């Protein structure tokens, strides 16, 4: 049985303290690096059963419990990790008391949901929520209430713990055959590449790039001072909801509900690897030319070396700290790293042409906990769906996730005209027939025949509550009258 929490209102918005670990869901602070995961999206059909489920997930009495940020004894991974998110409609379905207050100005994106946010993040046209998978699409999203993310070390464990989890939530969902009794289950199986020379293993996305290189580091008591060129630690409140004078949002109240949580944009992004490969190999490019173009699209070579450090050829993989401790320095037009390159778009690293104030390396960051799904691409178009799925977390969806998607990824003009930037080729809503421009010896080089390589297949905005919040909901749900999602003012 877990020990009762004695959480008090946090007084330090900037740093995570060790005593916070048992209250914070683990994947907010730490990537589990577990190779098998399964995401479940379900509808709450029975409130009392849902409240009992929340109790079971936090009391230690259930077959599975929510995984917190507590360090694993001797660093040994458990057989599973489990995390929980709730949509705004999910909170409403729990019938929480009206004392609940989630500020509309700060959290309007979460309250309105991912379908409503679609235009602001480029989920239009083929990416439209109308075309998303059942349970998340426009017709059904209002009844997508709970997101459970299960991580395991083996496929066998994933099946075993999935069975137990399904038994736990069996009474929560509508009865079999009733509307919305279906549960979306989405498996994620990252492809692990083993370097034949070094024997080291790296995760890769289906486009062939090494994955999981750079996530923000949340400031925490006891961290070593940042290395000379390391990106600064990000204040905790940007990823773990806290109250404080300089915090740019009003903590949801009561604080027992609002503190130590975060928000997530859960995303399912299908990747058209065949189209990507066809684009690279067009115009008779040889293998080296294809790799060169691929590096310009991403901002990194496929072995993760940054283009800004290795402009002409990938070379051997750089040490881990060099993969992250760099910025775009004096590259004001996009040579060697194009402004539209994916890594430059999603993390400009203080680029004075982009961020405000210039040099600001901590605002507008997101924590990515996503991996590849679908079979490994073997070089020919097999028609199998594959892509990337998981959580993109932050305290303010509007100012972090949506800002990155709307103002950087899908904004062709953000660095001004000199850069001839265009839209992020690996993540943006690129219209078919677009061009991609990079710079070579001071002149722009334009590559034609560019099309969309990534299509959104699903999205869900969730609140990732603290353990205290889950207990608070379990104890206070089922109220009458109860909190409802506020309408747009």
């Amino acid at each position: 049985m877990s020990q009762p929490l004695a959480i008090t209102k946090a007084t330090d918005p900037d740093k995570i303290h060790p005593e916070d670990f048992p209250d914070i869901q683990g994947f907010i602070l730490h990537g589990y690096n577990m190779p098998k995961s399964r995401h479940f999206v379900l509808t709450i059909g029975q409130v009392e059963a849902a409240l009992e489920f929340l109790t079971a997930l936090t009391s230690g009495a259930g077959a599975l419990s929510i995984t917190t940020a507590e360090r694993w004894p001797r660093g040994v991974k458990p057989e599973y990790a489990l995390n929980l998110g709730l949509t705004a409609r999910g909170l409403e379905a729990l019938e929480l008391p009206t004392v609940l207050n989630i500020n509309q100005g700060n959290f309007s994106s979460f309250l309105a949901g991912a379908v409503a946010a679609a235009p602001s993040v480029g989920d239009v046209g083929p990416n439209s929520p109308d075309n998303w998978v059942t349970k998340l699409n426009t017709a059904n999203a209002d009844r997508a209430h709970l997101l459970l993310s299960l991580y395991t070390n083996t496929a066998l464990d994933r099946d075993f713990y999935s069975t137990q989890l399904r038994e736990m939530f069996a009474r929560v969902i509508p009865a079999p055959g009733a509307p919305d009794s279906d549960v979306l289950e989405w498996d994620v199986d990252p492809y692990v590449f083993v370097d034949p020379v070094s024997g080291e293993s790296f995760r890769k996305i289906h486009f062939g790039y090494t994955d999981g290189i750079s996530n923000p580091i949340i400031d925490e008591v006891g961290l070593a001072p940042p290395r000379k060129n390391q990106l600064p630690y990000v204040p905790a409140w940007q990823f773990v909801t806290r109250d404080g004078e300089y915090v740019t949002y009003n903590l949801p109240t009561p604080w027992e509900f609002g503190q130590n949580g975060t928000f997530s944009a859960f995303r399912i992004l299908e990747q058209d690897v065949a189209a990507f490969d066809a684009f690279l190999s067009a115009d008779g490019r040889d293998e080296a030319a294809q790799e060169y173009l691929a590096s310009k699209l991403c901002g990194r070579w496929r072995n993760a070396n940054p283009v800004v450090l290795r402009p002409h050829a990938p070379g051997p993989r750089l040490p881990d700290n060099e993969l992250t401790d760099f910025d775009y320095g004096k590259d004001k037009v996009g040579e060697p790293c194009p402004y539209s390159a994916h890594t430059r778009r999603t993390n400009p690293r203080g680029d004075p042409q982009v961020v405000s104030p210039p040099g600001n390396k901590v605002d507008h960051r997101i924590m990515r906990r996503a991996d590849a799904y679908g079979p490994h691409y073997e070089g020919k178009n097999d028609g199998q769906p594959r892509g990337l799925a998981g959580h993109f977390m932050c305290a303010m969806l509007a100012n972090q996730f949506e800002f990155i998607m709307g103002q950087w990824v899908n904004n062709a003009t953000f660095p001004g005209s000199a850069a001839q930037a265009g839209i992020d080729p690996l993540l943006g809503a690129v219209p078919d027939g677009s061009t991609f421009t990079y710079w070579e010896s001071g002149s722009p080089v334009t590559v034609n025949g560019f099309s969309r390589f990534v299509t959104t297949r699903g999205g869900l905005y969730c609140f990732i509550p603290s353990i205290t919040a889950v207990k608070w909901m379990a104890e206070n749900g089922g109220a009458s009258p109860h909190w409802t999602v506020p309408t747009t003012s």
Partner: protein
Amino acid sequence: MATPVQNALTAIIPIKAEFVDKLRQQLASNPIDPSGLDAVGTVHFARIFVFAQNNASGVPANLAAVITSYDHAFAPYIQDFVNQPSVAAFFDSFLMAVDDPAAAGLVPVTKNAAGFAALVQKYDNTNPANSWGQWYSAYPGLTVKNILNPS
């Protein structure tokens, strides 16, 4: 002409009667610290004033004008804007003078950036979402940052 990367804001905002003279005096005697706007790095020009008594245009003197040319979209960048202490300090004071039931509840503006943006846009006569008239830019592709940090 290419669609300019810049946009316009022309907000005409009602001021509570008891604050009109005080605000006019404050604007005349206490210049806003420009370092905050410098740091934001997306504002080309900005001016804020209260219409004069008996002005020739016949505009009521209880109205303040916030007029600016800025880069990119308005609302998404407003958090960066109000994160600057001197900017936030001014608008915290300004909001207390605004004659709108929503205004005072937006203080401190740092914690209420989206609401602040919505309030300003409510009074913006040149909101890009509306069809509002004509807009000319001598340098449609250049941001403030491009101009201050030429290649």
